[in-house]
């Protein structure tokens, strides 16, 4: 646990006393404390500084020039002139005043502009106002939060759920609530950025395995097992985790969950499954990748979902057994130390969830559209595009088959294609990454999202625009 200023030997010592009984600990602790204090108090004072005179110090200070606050930003960067979306980001979207078919925002089930959802949000404002004005612990728990948590848990058939105020912070807080320094986490190399931040915050040891490659994971786990065999004392306190996504935002692929869980079970890893895309989209009734593979949900330790994509609201949630989820109410940083989700967004998410429950056929329709888009995109291969993503996934990536060598040119070409599509009435955008921050390089792509209201004619038209773009930019 957090003690990075201490040398590792003391860290090991801390690890040992962690498991001692408190009384024991207090008695011995005090003794040790006095001792250390005595030793260090003396030495600390004597061994520093005094080697420099005040003038010398002042000279150093006056000569030191820090780097500027921030590096200057190229003024032509696209992020400085973002597209402006006027109106609702529904099935159609107005981008910079141009009405477009929406293949860009994550509105899989068209809940963003559903009147029932809006009405619930409005009623919620009339009752609760807008903000919750406090974290969950301090009068920020509104009855709608409890209701939503209960509904989510029931929907997923698990014991308990907890709701976070922001999708990004959900998985980023959930991971470090369990995984700590000295633990080990096996992670798919294509996980989204929020997961990567959660891994960073945990300070555990991270082992990336190749995307959806069960064999590679097994290899890594075996290696670890061998290593652990050499130091059983340490292995006894090293928790193991497996972190995966249901559908990968970065590739549109579904994880091979059964095989992964089998491995996790064999090597006694607890599994954290991020369903930010797959929740509400995968499986017959939208219950995610566990339903898709017909897997007992109790085999997964924690499922993390987002309410920002399929549910058309803001926030995220975790579901699992009470034993697991309850812990986050005191240890999830984003849960404890941030204001709770505004009630109106809670109500909106709840209204969407009710819609899914009432109309499971919505999911069936979505799957049909996913297939439709999938086929249309797969047919673009002769136009210089290659597609990634599974058939049932509402997120697909289009890569350029012959991209420019230069990364910068590659990106700007994708940007131009996107601009071209928008000009021609189809909102398609490049997936945005901070390349220097990602754990693994991400191939630049156009990220296509599927909406339940798409018609074959619209998909056809969109595909036409992409074909035209291909000849416009000589892609093939």
């Amino acid at each position: 646990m957090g003690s990075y200023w201490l040398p590792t030997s003391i860290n090991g010592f801390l690890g040992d006393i962690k498991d001692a009984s408190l009384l024991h600990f207090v008695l011995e602790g005090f003794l040790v404390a006095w001792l250390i204090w005595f030793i260090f108090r003396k030495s600390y004072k004597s061994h520093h500084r005094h080697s420099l005179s005040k003038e010398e110090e002042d000279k150093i200070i006056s000569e030191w020039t820090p780097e500027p606050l921030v590096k200057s930003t190229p003024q032509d960067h696209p992020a400085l002139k973002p597209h402006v979306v006027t109106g609702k980001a529904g099935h159609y979207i107005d981008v910079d005043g141009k009405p477009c078919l929406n293949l860009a925002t994550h509105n899989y089930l068209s809940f963003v502009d559903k009147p029932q959802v809006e009405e619930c949000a409005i009623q919620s404002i009339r009752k609760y106002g807008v903000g919750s004005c406090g974290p969950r612990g301090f009068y920020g728990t509104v009855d709608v939060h409890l209701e939503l948590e209960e509904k989510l848990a029931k929907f997923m058939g698990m014991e308990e759920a907890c709701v976070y105020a922001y999708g990004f912070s959900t998985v980023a807080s959930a991971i470090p609530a369990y995984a700590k320094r000295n633990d080990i986490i096996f992670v798919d190399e294509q996980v989204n950025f929020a997961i990567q931040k959660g891994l960073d915050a945990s300070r555990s040891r991270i082992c990336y395995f190749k995307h959806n490659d069960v064999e590679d994971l097994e290899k890594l786990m075996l290696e670890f097992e061998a290593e652990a065999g050499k130091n059983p004392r340490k292995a006894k306190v090293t928790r193991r985790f497996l972190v995966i996504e249901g559908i990968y935002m970065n590739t549109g692929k579904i994880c091979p969950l059964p095989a992964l869980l089998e491995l996790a079970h064999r090597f006694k890893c607890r599994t954290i499954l991020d369903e930010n895309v797959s929740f509400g989209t995968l499986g017959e009734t939208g219950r995610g990748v566990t339903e898709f593979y017909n897997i007992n949900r109790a085999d997964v330790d924690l499922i993390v979902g987002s309410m920002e994509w399929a549910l058309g609201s803001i926030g995220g949630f975790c579901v699992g057994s009470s034993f697991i989820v309850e812990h986050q109410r005191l240890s999830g940083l984003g849960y404890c130390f941030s204001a709770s989700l505004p009630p109106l967004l809670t109500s909106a998410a709840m209204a969407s969830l009710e819609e899914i429950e009432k109309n499971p056929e919505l999911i069936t329709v979505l799957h049909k559209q996913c297939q439709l888009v999938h086929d249309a995109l797969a047919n673009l291969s002769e136009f210089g595009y290659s597609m990634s993503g599974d058939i049932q996934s509402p997120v697909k990536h289009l890569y350029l088959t012959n991209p420019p060598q230069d990364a910068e040119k590659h990106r700007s070409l994708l940007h131009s294609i996107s601009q071209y599509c928008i000009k021609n009435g189809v909102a398609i955008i490049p997936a945005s990454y901070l390349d220097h921050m990602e754990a693994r390089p991400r191939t630049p792509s156009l990220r296509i999202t599927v909406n339940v209201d798409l018609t074959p004619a619209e998909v056809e038209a969109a595909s036409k625009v992409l074909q035209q773009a291909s000849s416009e930019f000589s892609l093939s």
Partner: protein
Amino acid sequence: MKVGAFREPERLMRREVAVVPKVTAGRAERCGYEDEANGTVTVGETCRRPNMATEGLLSDGAHQLKTFAVNGKHALNVVNGKANGVVHSKKNGHVTAHCNGTTTGVPQSEPKKKPHSKESFEEVPLVTAVTTYMGFYLLVVLGYLNQFLFAPPVAKERNRKGYVPLYNRFEQFYSRYVYRRIRDCWNRPICSVPGAEVVLKDRITHDYGWTFQYTGLEKKCLNLGSYNYLGFAEATGQCAEDSIQSIKKYACALGSTSHELGTSPIHLELEETTARFLGVEAAITFGMGFATNALNLPCLLSPGCLVISDEKNHASLILGLRLSGATTRVFKHNNMKNLEKVLRTAVVQGQPKTGAPWKKIFIVAEGVYSMEGSLVHLPEVIALKKKYKAYLFLDEAHSVGAMGPRGRGVLDYYGVNPHDVDVLMGTFTKSFGSAGGYIAGSKELVDFLRVNSHAACYASTMAPPIAQQIITSMRIIMGEDGTNEGQKRVMQLARNTRYFRRRLHQMGVIIYGHEDSPVVPLLVYMFSKIGAVVRTLAKKNIAAVGVGFPATPLMEGRIRFCLSAAHTKEQLDNVLDVLEDIAETLGLKYSQLPRYKGVIQYEDENK
């Protein structure tokens, strides 16, 4: 121990009669330093806070307890019950004799500075310290007995035989046997707007806090728990109406990030309004305050940078610093002398091992500290930052809107030029009754963040109705709605704050923080008293927040009141009467300072 100034009855009197914060220009360069407590705790020794907050509430605590074992100084504190004044964070920023409010002439151009003579951190009497510790350890021992004798009625992990245990044993023990005893004081659900009054959902426990059942009853309480400083948590009125309209126009969310298709005109308007409100060139906004810190600090900092962080900084800041990979050093809460020492050492010594100069040095502080009620000593921090060429990151989560004659935050309060703070951060959760956060400053900074911020690239943009609430409330504060409603709210909050704090002082309870800070922590010290006070208050229909170990030091259990412009004098009087009662029966009048005997006036509206 220099609490001398506090003991001066004459000074006390002046505190009571000073109505508008007097703009005094003491010799600024002396104010924070003179009163340094003895500087025996060395820098290195104070470097433990950052780890704790980022481990969550519980492990934080477990850690803290363990820290006692390795940290002799801490252990010493404990034994001395702070009577020796070693806990400097409480001592500095203290009332000092020279900061007596006399105005000396200063050149016009100099920013107006107020000496921070308005803060109080009275120390706990020795007896209380000892009993608090005994009480806590008694709880722990009883807990162990309990755990030994009875199986806890809690969920167990199933089908995970042979796995390494998921939780730290002490953490589990603490939450089950210590925290549970007063668990009913937190997470109380509400079912109304968190305005001046709030409706609590009644719940009871039949098994000493293991589980709760809802009775179906509701209870209206006076709300001193929510961060509703300017009273914008409203279900009716302009803000609510505008937000509803924005749902009709833009829906509840956009389902995209700001690099992709998540920007709507309402976001541009919000950013433009925020920049205007703060008087800076530009601002960028995000959907969550916590994430604003956690996801933006890492792109401003990198390994090779040094951050000097106040020990009481919020968990989100500490998380952001940890993610950045920069080196973090901690300075004692609001202690300018210590800050300078850390800064100077850092610049002179450079990076550890190599001795290479630091790339950048950041000072990270908050405007109003939410658990201490204290105010950053901004003019001094700025002077130091300039002297040592450091950058200043100021988190105004609790101060923006709530401080300053125009409600623009601590910069406004101190009359500081906004350009003197490099990175202005704040949240919309509190004074604006909404959600989200901003970072504001130069256009160069904001442009950089638009391109490089993790949140701009990967996190959803703010929901339109949330943004609209902020725009409307901000306009009201700025008077752009054509009324003086906003100004009235700012004034009302200031009056409420001073009145409430003075009355509490007079009552003889110990409160922490700055006299103009709307966050009022009332010290009850003992763990069990936190529960007792919160429950009694609830019985009398007052909702307040109790904070104890591990969120505060073990010694310093407290009840926190957050004042609001929505409160009336009558409501505050009601609370104060109840508190008077409680303080008497539960023995909270720990203060050993002389009390003002006269009648404390509620300031006139026109003042």
